[in-house]
């Protein structure tokens, strides 16, 4: 593992004006590091800002504030050709394989395009690399001539992954890469991503709302709520010892195969609007443990400097710990 993290984000903010002087605080000050070779999961519900944050890391939307370092290099404000060169190291796999491939280009051209645009290798070398990439993701080289609509969803996602691998990036941003796929196909793609990570030493910034998927693929996980990270930690810490009530609610809401495991921690209502986020802890309005302090002060992410951190005043209080014990009891 190298010294510098593959991606280092500090105090990232992405705000969008929505007219009438209002501003959506889609991402509101998040920081995290992704060490090289690590899959980093960003989970949260719709509207939590996870996708916006990931797109900002790939510079597909403009950060309002904060810094993004890719392999130690500040890319927050890069432009034009410099950004184009930086993109060699950070690539994206998108959610919907039906929308992320240009319907008017052949599969081979789609995979070759990043190399064309960044001027990598000779035309012959690019063509060979495309063949190699097709094999890597489990497609046949003859399929290069086909158009996207002639592939199934899973195959299209393989093309999307091959395109992302073309420039030999160090980090791949995966935005819900399996949520648009059928269950049986999900497994194929998840295994492919897992294998590529091990073989190529890739790092992932992996966005998902599916905790099962995140648990399977990600070594480190951050939970987002309304534009902020409320808990961050390793896979085992997040699932064995969730500390934030929101994390607990998320875990408890996932239907499991065992009857009666549905321990019944239910969130009420909907998340507040990101246009005018509430004072204090943003989760307080839906939290069964919220106290006056939670509604007045904002909790800061704290804990082990390099390990499990949580942004909750009550994470160590007895009743919260007791609920966790109940939720995380491993059935006999």
């Amino acid at each position: 593992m190298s010294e510098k993290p593959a991606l280092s984000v500090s105090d990232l903010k992405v705000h969008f004006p929505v007219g009438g002087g209002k501003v959506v605080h889609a991402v509101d000050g998040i920081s995290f590091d992704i060490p090289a070779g690590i899959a980093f999961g960003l989970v949260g519900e719709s509207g939590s800002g996870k996708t916006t944050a990931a797109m900002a890391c790939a510079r597909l939307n403009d950060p309002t504030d904060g810094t993004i370092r890719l392999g130690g290099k500040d890319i927050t404000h890069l432009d034009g050709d410099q950004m184009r060169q930086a993109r060699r190291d950070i690539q994206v796999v998108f959610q919907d394989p039906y929308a992320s491939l240009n319907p008017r280009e052949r599969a081979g051209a789609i995979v070759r395009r990043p190399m064309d645009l960044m001027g990598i290798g000779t035309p012959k070398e690019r063509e060979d690399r495309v063949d190699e990439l097709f094999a890597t993701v489990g497609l046949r080289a003859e399929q290069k001539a086909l158009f996207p609509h002639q592939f199934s969803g899973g195959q299209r996602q393989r093309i999307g992954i091959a395109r992302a691998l073309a420039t030999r990036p160090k980090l791949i941003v995966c935005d819900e890469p399996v949520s648009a796929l059928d269950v049986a196909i999900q497994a194929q793609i998840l295994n492919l991503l897992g294998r590529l990570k091990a073989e190529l030493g890739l790092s992932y910034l992996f966005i998902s709302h599916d905790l099962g998927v995140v648990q399977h693929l990600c070594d480190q996980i951050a939970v987002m709520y309304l534009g902020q990270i409320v808990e961050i930690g390793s896979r085992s810490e997040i699932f064995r010892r969730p500390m934030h009530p929101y994390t607990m609610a998320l875990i408890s809401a996932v239907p499991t195969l065992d009857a009666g495991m549905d321990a019944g921690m239910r969130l009420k209502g909907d998340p507040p609007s990101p246009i005018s986020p509430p004072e204090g802890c943003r989760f307080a309005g839906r939290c069964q443990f919220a106290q006056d302090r939670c509604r007045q002060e904002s909790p800061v992410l704290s804990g082990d400097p390099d390990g499990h951190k949580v942004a909750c005043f009550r994470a160590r209080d007895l009743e919260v710990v007791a609920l966790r014990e109940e939720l995380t009891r491993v059935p006999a």
Partner: protein
Amino acid sequence: MSVTDTTPPVAATAGKPLPKPVSPSRQVWQMFRQNHSAMIGLFILFAIIVISIFGPSLYTVSPRDMVWMPLTPPGQSEYLLGTDYLGRDLLAGLINGGRVTITIGFSAAVLTILIGVTIGALAGFFGGRVDNVLMRVTEFFQVLPNLLFAMVVVMLFSPSLINIAIAIGIVSWTSTARLTRAEFLKIREMDYVKAERSIGAGNARLIWKVILPNAAPPLIVVAALSIGSAILFEAGLSFLGLSDPNAMSWGRMIGDNRPYILDSSWGVTFPGIAIFLTVLAISLVGDGLNDAINPKLRQR
């Protein structure tokens, strides 16, 4: 990069022969071919174009010479469709006029599309202030009374063929611009555009190489139909006397023969039929294209 996987899903498809690559445009053509009325339209259009190109060299009667008694009805002389008020051969007029009419129609349509697509593409792609300015310009042109404005343009700069085509182009690009803008607004949010950006594509590539080809299908339909409207527009201008004095067009034939309509209905009828057939054929082709393109959009 080495691949050491046990069971890639290739295994499941390995035995099957690969399908042939079918490009989206090929799919459209296959759909189009099954549409009878569209194919009839295409055939008529093709015939009219062939006649306009080769007709004058096969049927060598000059459309300007007085060849017979004026106002001879069809079928009463060697000049099949009769003569006009100056005794000129109507058939020769139709054959030669087709060239002019269709040329003006095509060039005006090309101009319409060039202006409309450029303005619409820039407005839709950049949005914000660019969009605001360009859309106000578009609205300005939209509220001008088309025919009057075109007449002013033609009268200001002599009624030559080029000026007429330009005048038609200038007054008719607005709806194309709006459609292009709408398509761009929709397509620029698609993931594949984002994906192109993520591999380092610049704005020029995104606009012309990525978004435009995907916005093309509805624009092609509009382009086809705008040839028809340009032909009608030219006929209207000629009818009002604003035509190139050196060129015979169908519209001008109608305009010239208008005063004698009670004595010789054939003088306006035949050019009228020619315009009608051409525009009808273009509409059939346009509708056929529309039908062929839309199912594909729906299934996506």
